[in-house]
């Protein structure tokens, strides 16, 4: 039996069992080893899968039914019966999603069935970024890619990948080991480099802490838009719902500090509008006031970072009045189960420090490792600990690179300054299933299967217990694409540097050994069967706080920037921009502006009035890094002088729904980065604004921002 059939068999077992788990009838289970023609029309199967949209790695269930597609055979259109995915839902057995799913998760179906997916490997024939490619066979493509890798200084080979832990990352690591190049790096998007660095300092552990907000009585969130995105939006939304109304007679409260009226700010009982970059000053100021309150016996190293803070100076730098800081600190001190959620949804030049200072407040509150507090990161699953880390010097390495391999990230969009390096590299190889901003620069595009078409094993960014989500294969690939792990193995073979690819099944049995040592008491085959039945595995939650924090370092408060500043942010619907080619998401009203099929520049009413701007007028925003033109949305909740724009539009190339639509805010933001981690910052960037004639139209779902007077009957 070859690998594919083995995987299908496993997938069938999983489908059957999950079908059972969801209360469906056993008769509906159709083994996928029988031809797809015999999947009865109208019967549904539910197969576990893993959502690939963000770092949360939610476990999902895919609803699979008989369907038909038209394909060309010998120049004639014929109908082919296939098994198709009809819907995605959360997997109730998954500890992260708990059976729920966000807008982006649902819309990932439109990645699988996107009309602009690449049909097979492509070779560039025109100039870089011209979009001129020709179809090429896999054999030729791999031979050519292998030639590019041979004879090049291995240190000049750069692999840019997503920061996701799992089997894919392990295979990338094995490939790079085999060809002798440094580890893959992410590009600072969705990898939470600032949060990870802060966690090392504050909790002495690598990884991301878990905030137990479901049991909190008061949540203060500084910089973390945990309901609109961030590390795990579905998990934290579930926990938020419970915090508000899941407990008898106890409603938790939320205070949110951010420089934007985000979804989390919408939901807060009180929003503290922080000047962009002032998050560190705010955290230090709150800690300073807390020291004078009745608080827990905090470690001396933590107390020392807050002791000498000048409250007035910190308040001025944060943009939050001293009175509001005192009130917040006093409420935290009085709460029976407070917690401070520390994050950098918008990365600043001082984000690692800001997150560390905010997270350290939890030591002052005595809630580290307590119910309703913060759980420091658990130990990673050893067998899969090799996720692509983030190297702050990735852009310099890109400048030097002879061969660039790109998987799952879009540097040409998220870091527009990288375009010149991409244009200048000797060889660029992309594994993107789409002709996106970055693969447009590629010499070879070796398109990956869609996540729904391949076996997966991914470790979530945060989880209530040590866990991973896994899936077998359950629908045949639509096109002549290939899983990237397989392509890497073929590539290494062709370059005469072979490595042993680890399959999802092998990873599961390796993980079984790790779990067995913890005394789970299951056999390897039972473990594997259960993993594919349940769509993953979860162990016992660990609640062991470290005895002391790590080396916290020093903190410096920078004064508030003067003038009008610009910041980019990740919206709930488009994330870092990858959601823009899904029509459902383009037609989903932007929560802030209600915009459809486009994103505006958001500015406050006073600034708009000063410039004579109303909704829909177009402006040119200019910084020292670049300029963009976009329509204006006058946001009643914008901080005066802070102009915001969501990532999502402005793709030079990303299929029919996204290409050439709107503007990319990163062009204006420039290449500033968090000073400790090198993670690209999303502002604040000083800008000038000028009104321009004409321009793009602002299409809004609701043009009305204020409710009408009560209806007269």
């Amino acid at each position: 039996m070859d690998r594919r059939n083995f995987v299908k068999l496993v997938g069938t077992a999983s489908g059957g069992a999950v079908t059972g788990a969801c209360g469906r009838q056993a008769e509906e289970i159709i083994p996928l080893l029988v031809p797809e023609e015999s999947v009865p029309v109208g019967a549904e199967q539910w197969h576990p899968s893993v959502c690939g949209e963000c770092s949360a790695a939610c476990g999902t269930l895919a609803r699979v039914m008989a369907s038909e597609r038209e394909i060309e055979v010998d120049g004639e259109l014929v109908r082919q019966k296939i098994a198709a995915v009809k819907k995605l839902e959360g997997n109730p057995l998954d500890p992260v999603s708990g059976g729920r799913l966000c807008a982006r998760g649902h819309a990932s179906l439109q990645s699988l069935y996107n009309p602009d997916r690449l049909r097979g490997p492509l070779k560039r024939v025109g100039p870089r970024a011209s979009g001129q490619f020709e179809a090429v066979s896999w054999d030729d493509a791999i031979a050519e890619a292998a030639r590019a890798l041979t004879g090049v200084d291995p240190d000049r080979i750069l692999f840019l990948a997503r920061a996701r832990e799992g089997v894919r990352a392990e295979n990338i690591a094995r490939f790079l080991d085999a060809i002798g190049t440094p580890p893959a790096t992410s590009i600072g998007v969705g990898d939470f480099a600032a949060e990870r660095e802060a966690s090392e300092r504050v909790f002495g552990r690598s990884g991301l802490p878990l905030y137990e907000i479901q049991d909190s009585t008061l949540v203060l969130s500084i910089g973390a838009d945990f309901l609109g995105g961030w590390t795990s939006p579905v998990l934290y939304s579930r926990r938020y719902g419970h915090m508000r109304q899941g407990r008898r007679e106890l409603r938790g409260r939320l205070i949110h500090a951010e420089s934007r009226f985000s979804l989390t700010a919408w939901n807060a009982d009180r929003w503290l509008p922080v000047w962009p970059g002032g998050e560190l000053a705010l955290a230090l100021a709150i800690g300073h006031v807390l020291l004078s309150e009745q608080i827990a016996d905090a470690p001396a190293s933590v107390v020392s970072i807050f002791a000498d803070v000048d409250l007035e100076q910190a308040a001025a730098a944060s943009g939050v009045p001293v009175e509001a800081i005192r009130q917040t600190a006093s409420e935290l001190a009085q709460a029976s189960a407070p917690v401070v959620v520390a994050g950098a949804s918008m990365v600043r030049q001082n984000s690692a420090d800001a997150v560390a200072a905010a997270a350290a407040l939890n030591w002052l509150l005595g809630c580290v490792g307590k119910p309703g507090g913060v759980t420091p990161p658990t130990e990673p699953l050893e067998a899969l600990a090799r996720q692509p880390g983030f190297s702050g010097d990735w852009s310099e390495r890109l400048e030097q690179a002879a061969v660039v391999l790109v998987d799952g990230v879009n540097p040409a969009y998220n870091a527009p300054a990288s375009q010149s390096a991409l244009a200048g590299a000797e060889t660029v190889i992309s594994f993107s299933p789409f002709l996106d901003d970055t693969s447009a620069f590629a010499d070879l595009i070796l398109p990956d299967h869609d996540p729904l078409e391949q076996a997966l094993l991914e470790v979530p960014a945060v989880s209530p217990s040590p866990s991973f989500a896994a899936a077998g294969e359950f629908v045949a690939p639509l096109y002549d694409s290939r899983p990237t792990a397989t392509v890497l193995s073929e590539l290494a073979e062709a370059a005469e540097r072979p490595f042993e690819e680890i399959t999802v099944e092998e990873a599961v049995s390796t993980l079984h050994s790790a779990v067995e040592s913890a005394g789970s008491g299951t056999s390897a085959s039972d473990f594997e069967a259960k993993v594919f039945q349940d769509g993953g595995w979860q162990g016992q939650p660990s609640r062991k706080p470290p005895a002391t924090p790590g080396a916290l370092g020093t903190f410096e408060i920078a004064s508030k920037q003067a003038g009008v500043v610009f910041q980019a942010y990740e919206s709930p619907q488009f994330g870092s921009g990858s959601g823009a080619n899904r029509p459902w998401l383009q037609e989903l009203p932007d929560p802030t502006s209600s915009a459809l099929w486009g994103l505006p520049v958001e500015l406050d009413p006073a600034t708009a009035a000063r410039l004579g701007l109303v909704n829909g007028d177009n402006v040119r925003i200019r910084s020292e890094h670049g300029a963009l033109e976009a329509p204006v949305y006058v946001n009643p909740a914008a901080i005066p002088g802070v102009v915001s724009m969501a990532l999502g539009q402005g793709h030079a190339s990303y299929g029919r729904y996204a290409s050439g639509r709107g503007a990319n805010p990163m062009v204006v933001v420039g290449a500033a980065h968090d000073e400790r981690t090198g993670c690209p910052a999303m502002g604040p960037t000083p800008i000038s604004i000028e009104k321009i004639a004409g321009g793009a139209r602002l299409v809004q779902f609701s043009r009305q921002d204020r409710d009408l007077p009560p209806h007269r009957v």
Partner: protein
Amino acid sequence: MAEQTTQQAEQGAERTPQWAMAIDLDRCTGCEACVVACASENNVPTAGEDQAAMGRTKHWIRIDRYYEGEFPDIKVKYRPVMCQQCDEAPCEPVCPVNATYQNAEGLNVQIYNRCIGTRYCANNCPYTVRFFNWFAPEWAAPLNLQLNPDVSIRPAGVMEKCTFCAHKIKRAKLDADAEGRELADGDAQPACVQSCPAEAMVFGDMSDADSKVAKQLGSGRSGQLLESLGTKPRVFYLEKAD
């Protein structure tokens, strides 16, 4: 005892459920997961930018959001709004062909085959949750593969709206029948309710006092949208508890 149980089961089978939804606005985050879940479940087509600019998008469920106050003391009020499945539905009496009516389970149903497209119903709906198909819907292949075979594609010239996922209610009933048991609370879940990350939405039989939805309706925070119009919606909102 056994006889009594059988009798109860028979009575249960005959009881007509009265479907209702409760939405806890203190849990709802406004994330719009329900909006995409609905489009996916119900084959709701996208209109594209030009039609969207004319206000012709179809969102069977939407998040209404209104700002209140001024910066920095600004708040936003928002709620998911879909067909309110009114007991006294203003859309029903104006339909000249009875294409829309209330069924025995309290659902405001829309018969696409009967609809002749007068759009009177949409004009008369105070919640603006009815949508007219100006054109036949199109999906660029292979996006058509995502279509749910349980839900009809609405042709040009007819109205469409939220059905409370009537097809999912039907499937839940068939599953329960096949397993020889009564429909249990929570078996029937519209796509929006199923998806909601904050678990803000509850759906069920309001005539069953033990159902989750009936319990939510007993909460002191429960009310209806534009209650004063007397439309008697089957969607109940639990107001924010701040």
